[in-house]
């Protein structure tokens, strides 16, 4: 097995990754990489983060056997419950780490992009806790469909800036956050929400999310045959995979059919990294289209592009209607309403269980990246 998921040299994962940013941001990225290297090697930093994750964010999250679904599907399904983490998704793992780092670097503000609003809420939360100012960029279209999270962010004291350019979703919010960062690079930390972006983000965010995989590994009574997670930017998947990269477990990322950078994209450079990107023949980035705002993104973190290219991980995709059905099926079978994003992983298991990709008897560990409260209105509309 190749040496996977270690510190990437210069932020490169094979031919992917790198740092495609304006010259204005290069020193900031350098400083961030150095600061994170230092912090991550500093037991005091790790202890402070570990403490916040435990006493504040509710870690470890449980590993729940999905007994009813397992019986119905003929596979053994374990759910890693990031839906139970504070703020309702795995995003809190990353933001607490980065906000602590921002404070350590003497920053006063954080800037964040958000799609579903989960990262924005998490970022606003970490900022409130650590006394930082938060500005969250969010596409106008996402603001409309994720009202609940907008209210949560403003209640937490964050400023939510509507982004009206381009497709008015996550990719445009990311552009806008990076623009804001360029203009305020001394005072502000750009608190990126997934494993995309320029070095050190893909590496740093994966390291901050690996707590998912590490916990799951130690909670699971066995090494599962298959480890599944949904993939937007890919942070919950990366964090999960990190715990199992050195095992024989198959690693499966599930994308939205309308945002399937791995299945339908081509190598390209967006938001600071070379990875797989949905784009046209010229290289214009395509608009993704998913019922899950958090997966409505045309790119994917570069490490996934790498893991896919070397065959260490597989990437599949599911369609919106399968996703909606999966939310309902999981809710009725196990009493867990997961996020539309997370339901992509569930939908893949529902579709493949008993088939060649997921033979009967398989032992499956699935990361449920978040809870579905935020999606109830959307779900109500497709009733």
């Amino acid at each position, binding site marked *: 097995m190749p040496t996977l998921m270690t510190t990437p040299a210069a932020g490169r994962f094979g031919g992917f990754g790198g740092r495609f940013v304006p*010259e*204005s941001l*290069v*020193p900031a990225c350098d400083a961030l990489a150095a600061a994170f290297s230092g912090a991550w090697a500093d037991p005091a930093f790790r202890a402070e983060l570990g403490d916040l994750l435990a006493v504040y964010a509710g870690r470890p999250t449980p590993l729940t056997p999905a007994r009813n679904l397992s019986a119905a599907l003929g596979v053994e399904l374990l759910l890693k419950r990031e839906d139970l983490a504070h703020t309702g998704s795995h995003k809190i793992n990353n933001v607490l780490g980065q906000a602590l780092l921002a404070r350590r670097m003497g920053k006063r503000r954080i800037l964040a992009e958000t799609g579903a609003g989960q990262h924005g809420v998490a970022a606003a939360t970490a900022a409130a806790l650590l006394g930082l100012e938060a500005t969250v960029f969010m596409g106008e279209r996402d603001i409309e469909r994720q009202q609940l999270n907008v209210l949560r962010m403003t209640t937490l004291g964050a400023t939510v800036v509507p982004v009206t*350019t381009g497709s008015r979703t996550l990719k445009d919010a990311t552009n806008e956050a990076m623009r804001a960062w360029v*203009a305020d*690079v001394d005072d502000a930390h750009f608190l990126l929400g997934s494993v995309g972006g320029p070095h050190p983000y893909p590496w740093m965010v994966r390291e901050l999310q690996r707590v998912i995989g590490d916990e799951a590994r130690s909670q699971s009574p066995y090494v599962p045959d298959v480890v599944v997670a949904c993939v937007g930017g890919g942070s919950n998947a990366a964090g999960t995979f990190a715990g199992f990269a050195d095992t024989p477990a198959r690693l499966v990322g599930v994308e939205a059919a309308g945002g399937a950078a791995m299945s339908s994209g081509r190598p390209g450079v967006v938001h600071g990294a*070379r990875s797989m990107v949905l*784009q046209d023949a010229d*290289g214009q980035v395509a608009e993704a289209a998913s019922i899950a705002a958090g997966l409505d993104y045309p790119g994917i973190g570069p490490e996934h592009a790498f893991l896919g290219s070397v065959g260490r991980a597989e990437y599949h995709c599911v369609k919106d209607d399968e996703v909606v059905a999966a939310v309902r099926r999981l809710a009725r079978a196990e009493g867990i309403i997961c996020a539309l994003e997370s339901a992509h992983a569930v939908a893949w298991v529902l579709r493949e269980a008993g088939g060649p990709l997921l033979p009967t008897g398989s032992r499956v560990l699935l990361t449920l990246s978040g809870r579905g409260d935020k999606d109830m209105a959307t779900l109500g509309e497709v009733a």
Partner: protein
Amino acid sequence: MKLLVPYLTAGVTENWIDYLLAMQAAGADAVEIGLPFSDPMLDGVTIQQASDQALARGVTIDSILAEIKGVPVRVPLIAFTYANLVFRPGADEFCRRLAEAGFRGLIVPDLPLDEAASVEAAAASHGIELTLLVAPVTPDDRLAEIVARSRGYIYAVSRMGTTGERDALASSAATLAARIKAAQAARIDAASALPVLVGFGVSGPAQAAEAGRAGDGVVIGSALMRRVLDGATPADLEAEVRALRAALDRADQEATADHASHAEISGHRG
């Protein structure tokens, strides 16, 4: 003489070529042609809007290059675009097409030094000058390397921020231009002679003159594109550029009272 380099988003309107000709007629020394990208991360609202408008009109790289090819421009054309458009066909193919369309230079604002090698090689092999950008926060050693590797001119990013009009020119512009000049002075090769152009947020004759004093010339983008988006005719735009030209020349005359300035952008178009 101080150099005036206006910027124009290709395809922004049906008659965008007329703007280009107007710029030349008004005395531009070169023109930066923005090849519109869906995600112009370093551009402010005006150029975002111009890019969106061009893409919404359905232009493609091919259609832009085809349009430009037959146009009687004499001044050098420099393509300004983002890395993904370069890498999509491959840097080599991309530069080949630029050269074929008569471009002289290329600027890729999200391609820093560390990622630039492959594009530099491709550009060089097609006679395209890859201009690199220097930012106010660029440390000295890095600045020296950019100065060494930049071709055509050196782009001094006047401030930390995106493109776009500002009320005043940042003081960082003069400081940065001076640092670049100092780095050039330490060299004896061609790089020592490259003009230093100040850009990002330069708007209006007064700021143009000020930026011109700081470096060897200015790039003016958003201020002009704003007029285009607001419906200025090519004639209107020509007047606008003439005013910039005049302000810049005035600033230069005042300066040459002290010492001569001979900036030139290498090469003229075929």
